[in-house]
């Protein structure tokens, strides 16, 4: 499945890139993420809980960063597996400076999922994916704002609060209800944005921070 999209971060490109290289940010922005660790430079392992409708379970996986051109672009590759199935993906991310001092992130990639996650969870994936993207970016927006504020005041501690899994679940439920009212185009976009793709992509993006 192909996924693609853009997001505008309200801050300069260097700060956005740096944020992504802060390992604390990722785990908090990614619902279900339990652990992320660097195996070696640009290579990581992660554990996370995945819940897509009736399918849930622990995943372990790994990912690699390639073609890292700071602060411009990178390629993410990796996959994970667990009782609910497996996922594999590859994605390209670009950060573009914009005139109003914001950063445009463009991402595109291809992901495939298998096992119960695909055969049973498939029908829920659209809504879960949508929620994942939205809450993930919302969290990152907050994280970025907190970082920029801290930078201004010179404070060391960066304050921001990540959503809990329960909050995330609530968001998913809300999105599922809302889905009925979405336009055909929105739905079409969602159909090509499976959750796991996004999990991985976000994980990769965020994880690129670790280094």
């Amino acid at each position, binding site marked *: *499945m192909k996924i693609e999209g853009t997001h505008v971060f309200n801050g300069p490109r260097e700060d956005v890139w740096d944020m992504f290289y802060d390992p604390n940010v990722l785990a908090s922005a990614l619902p279900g993420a339990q652990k992320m660790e660097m195996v070696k430079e640009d290579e990581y392992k992660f554990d996370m809980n995945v819940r897509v409708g009736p399918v849930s*379970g622990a995943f372990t996986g790994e990912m690699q960063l390639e073609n890292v051109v700071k602060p411009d672009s990178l390629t993410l590759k990796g996959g994970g*597996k667990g*009782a609910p*199935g*497996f996922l*594999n993906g590859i994605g390209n991310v670009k950060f573009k400076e914009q005139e109003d001092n914001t950063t445009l992130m463009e991402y595109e990639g291809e992901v*495939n*999922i*298998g*096992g*119960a996650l*695909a*055969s*049973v969870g*498939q*029908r829920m994936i659209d809504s879960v994916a949508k929620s994942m993207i939205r809450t993930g970016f919302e969290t990152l927006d907050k994280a970025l704002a907190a970082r920029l504020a801290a930078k201004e005041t010179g404070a060391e501690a960066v304050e921001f609060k990540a959503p809990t899994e329960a909050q995330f679940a609530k968001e998913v439920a809300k999105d599922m209800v809302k889905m009925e009212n979405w336009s055909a185009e929105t739905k079409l976009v969602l159909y090509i944005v499976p959750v796991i793709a996004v999990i991985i992509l976000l994980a990769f993006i965020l994880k690129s921070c670790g280094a």
Partner: protein
Amino acid sequence: MTESTISKSYKRNEDPRLLTGNGNYIDDIEIPGMLHVAIKRSDYAHAKINKIDTEEAKKMPGVVAVYTAEDLGDYWRPGPLQVPPPTVIKGSIFHARPLECIAKNKIRFSGEPVAVVVAESRYIAEDALDYIYLDIEPLEYVGDLEKSLDPGAPLIHEDLESNLSADVRQEVGSWEKAVAEADLVVKKRIVTKHVAGGAIENRGIVIQWDDSFKVLNVWATTQGPVPMRNSIAKYLGLMENQVRVMNPDIGGGFGPKIMSSQIDDVVIPWIAMKLKKPIKWVEDRRENFLGTTSERDQVHYAEIALKKDGTILGVKDEFYHNTGAYNPYGMTVPLNTQTHVISNYNIPNYFTRIIMVFTNQMVVTPVRGAGRSHGIFVMERLLDAAAKELGMDPIEIRRKNILPPESMPFRTGVIGQDFVESVLDSGDYPGALEKTLEAIEYEKFKKEIQPKLRAEGKHKGIGVIMFTEGTAVGPYEGAKVMVGVTGKVNVVCAYSNQGQGHYTTFAQVAANQLGVDIKDIEVVIGDTGQWQWGVGAFASRGMTLVGTAIHNAAVKVREKALNLASKILETPKEELELADGVVRIADLPEKFISLGELAMRANPTRGTVEEGMEPGLEAASYYGPPHGATGYGCLGLILDVDPETAKVKIERLVIADDCGTNINPMIVDGQIHGGLQMGIGEAFYENLVYDDYGQLVTASFMDYLFPQATDMPAKFEIKHIVTPSPLNPLGIKGIGEAGAICVPACFMQALEDAFEGMDLDITDSFMSPGKLYHYVQKAKGA
């Protein structure tokens, strides 16, 4: 002779048992000390296996054993080829690749078994599946029928040159000649879609190895107990009488339960013998979707050549048939397609070619309809397209080409799934068409009702199509009829019953000869310990083949009873009558002997017997027809479509059907109802969908839409035509698949009619509401 028990709607003998919770289905079988199996299945569609780590699973409390292909050692081998290759068809190519019931070295479809866990409970066995780790290398997935033969396509079986599974060509007359003479040739690419058997009960097996008597007892939901018995015996090195396969009550079959050579009947018996413990495995619904078989995936390039007046000169049909990752069931399905394309019409020139391909999908074997509905769909769609081109009414083109009654029996010249020429044995095809048109009031609808509705902006369409149903194919079945010392009668066979009512209809056939109450006839079906030979429940052949064998056996038993009674009553046979459980002198009814007493006397314990005497009031018989009997019929539908929501209401459904003699008309109607339900599902609700990576994304009833009560029309209007088959003494033809065969073709014709002028041009056998919406928008130019 008492009243005939044939063609009467007796209430079913089996119902009180099934209605009160006293049925005995596979999961109801409990044996003390029984262990439970769960199967680890591959999440990947195509992959190389490096290693399967079962250590952690083995250590779990309650887990008794875990087996992979490696652990099977020398026992591991591909399952048997259930149906042999079509060598009778000259020049045919068939690459036999029977199922690898547990994957070794390579995974070829998602859902393929890779390990078996045996544990003290099903819960523990399923827990352990999560602790089996697969080290694999994913390979590129092959799913597209046509691209599977591309030169660069990844090979599913590396020892073959391509993914070609079979190539079979048949020609009657000359297609080239037809084209040369034709005024018009219409070409279409026609697609039929993947559907599941969908029995409400999943498959299952219980195995008990009796180590002291060296007997393997097997209870299985199989539609073919004898072939399963034979393959288990062969694999385990046992004699046939050491393996007893028994059918419990079976919760629906619909085709996929005919399939053996899977992990349950190849691997689990070996484990049960090794562990010397009874073992049960019952499939769950997701496994049933992923790992059990399915059908209907074909792509046809079809052409029809005609004269200006609509006379068919010839048909050409080259089609790709998806057999899945293996081809254990041979060519049954696509051969049925070949014989059913030409169905009800006079087609002097016919060329047909099967290109059967391997894909990384579940194995394809018959599902109710089994290739026939695809053939009918192709032919009827071609006729509709031709009618449109010629500006003819769809009924007119059918009337023009339909086979007349005097052409029966009609030899088609095409070899079918039974490896003999398909012959349409009897029937009044035009009669079925006219009967349907009359019942559905075709003329009135077209001329009066529809114009008014159109003026009101409503979209109601009518469809009428013809179909044949090749049934009751050979090679043979057999049965034994025995009168017991109590006077009750026992009928035994090794067929298989999944709800067809054989406990009643088989009893009716025996009762008709033996003059006993059908409630006093106990029918045993599917027990190889009681009856050793047979083939299995497929192709709507039970009533015809087993029924005829029972009839023939009962005639012999009747003769035996009369002969013996004649001696005892010292009266010529001709003066005796058999009725009400006794043989009596017709003119002296008070002088009689009961059947029970005769049964006792039929086994003399002192004295001498005449040469050639056969003891017991019993007889066995086998029956094998020269070729199948062909049912046929005509379906009419009126569909009311809401163009905004694409919701379709089936306003009327009329079916005319001829299945020869109806042994039990109530049961015949029930078979038609059930078939129609599957046909409606196939046309509008059910579809197995694989994603671009070979993941089945419809592996639950949340995504695989099962047709429900409100999806059906208020009434199935059935019109019977009875042309007894000349092939068997009772004149029976099969009826199990009629409804499942005919719906998609008719449904699409009616949808096109509902949107006349928009030229929907539907060439796909499956039309979901979403797709219909898309078609309508496209036709509108939106």
